[in-house]
């Protein structure tokens, strides 16, 4: 039997790293999504008529039936509803975030999907599930065709009336 090591601090270690970086491509569908966002400030989506699914992010094919969607494009307004959200109190290194950051998953109207984004211009205690929000986009000449073009989502100006108790 090997004698167990009882003092972990005594274990010698070797340091290592996996030294690679990446250049990703957005793909055929992804590239069109970002170019449309940059030029027009709207979301490009694809629709499978047979399965009645509108893909956002857009896909070149229907993942349910494999229909070719390369000619099935449409555009939707960059707005939707808060499907769920979280309030982040610490950053990735455990440092407190002040003020806390509200991150939501927003279902985009007219699609079967959505996007994650920061919720802007509101206090954490004012967020509600199903609250309508609009994307806050960078000004046209500063957009580069990437997710950074979407600063976040902000409450739509006219809020729905709350049901009275």
């Amino acid at each position, binding site marked *: 039997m090997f004698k167990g090591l009882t003092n972990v601090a005594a274990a010698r270690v070797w340091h*290592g790293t996996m030294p*690679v970086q*990446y*250049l990703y491509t957005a*793909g055929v569908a992804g590239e069109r999504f970002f170019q449309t966002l940059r030029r027009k400030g709207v979301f490009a989506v694809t629709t499978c008529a047979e399965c009645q699914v509108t893909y956002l992010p857009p896909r070149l094919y229907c993942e*349910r039936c*494999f229909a070719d969607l390369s000619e099935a494009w449409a555009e939707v307004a960059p707005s939707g509803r808060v499907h769920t959200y979280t309030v982040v109190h610490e950053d990735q290194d455990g440092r407190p975030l002040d003020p806390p950051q509200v991150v939501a998953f927003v279902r985009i109207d007219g699609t079967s999907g959505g996007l994650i984004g920061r919720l802007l211009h509101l206090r954490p205690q004012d967020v509600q599930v199903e609250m309508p929000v609009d994307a806050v986009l960078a000004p046209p000449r500063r957009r580069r065709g990437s997710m950074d073009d979407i600063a976040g989502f902000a409450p739509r100006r006219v809020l729905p009336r709350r049901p009275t108790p």
Partner: protein
Amino acid sequence: MKRKPTRRVAVIGAGLSLFMRRALDTGKELAYYAASQALQTAGIRLKDIQAVVMATAPDAFDGVHMKGEWLLDGAGGVGKPYLRAYVGGGSGVFSIISGWMMVASGVFDLVLVVAEEKMSSCQPHPQGAFLTIFDHIIERPLGPNLLWIFSLEQQRYMAAYGIRNEDIALVSVKNKHNALAHPAAQVAAQLTVKDILDSDVVAWPVHRLMVSPISDGAAAVVLASEQVARRLSDRPIWIQGVGWCLDTSYWGNRDLAYPRYVEKAAWMAYEMAGVTEPRKQIHVAEPYDPFAYKELHHLEGLQLADRGQAPEDLARGRFDRTGELPSCPSGGLMGVGNPIAAAGLMKVCELFWQLRREAGARQVPGNPERGVAQAWGDLMQIGTVAVLGVR
């Protein structure tokens, strides 16, 4: 092989994306091109598929951790039993072995097998992803990479049998030439042995043109049980035998001049296929050729040439497309390209087309009735073999 599988399995469709240095398309999109083409040639739709196998090599290539799962929708696996087959470079051939098990076992009748690799993502070179496959304490301090290891192995092969580098360069000439007839090929060319040996020495004796390229690409096949294959296809190609085997993980403890693990895998597949004299009973071969010498190495391991004799057989034209035993009529990894897992499955696709006599300008003469495809990988230690035939 102690027991014979009870159900026979056929390939009834095949598809391939273009192989290229850098695709705009995502790995999912590449997988979709190959998979949808395979379904189309099999005359079926995605809803008919009962399970999906996806072969894709290290996550570090695409730069997506757990990329097998990430590729799910491009492989047509959403909402279905799905399995990632992963044995490194051997994954392409292992993918149909995995699919074969699903059908031979009686669990499924129609399985879609897809293989994808998008190596262009990895910077500065996919080689970097391999720096960590060596023992982190014993070997890595010296900074070995795959090219060193291949060069050491090729040198041992040459020294053991008195082989010249010119003999090995001929593999690049043959395969790059064969690939001229392949519509998906990335690095097809008409070159001479001199051209190969005039290219840069990467790590002697390996020259740049003796190494397969970095590639993006995908391949796919549809597997069917016997009953379903006979209903759907008038020319099913049968998987007659499969085999695989791993040698020790310590590359320094292997026989570098001869791939014993390929021999073991080959005999497993041959026994299942009822092949007793491979050189007579195999009519077309697609051995794995990521480096020029590897095709020769593997032909010997596959029992298709005597040890140390493959270079001589090659020089006298035995492995030409019109030769006695065409080897890599597709153009192989040296000519078509090497999107790792997809390259292995591309070899299976090639046998499918060759045995159905649908290979067009690449068609080998005569009436090939049986072929063997082989891939190699993991930590340079696995042989994966599949024998396919017309009956």
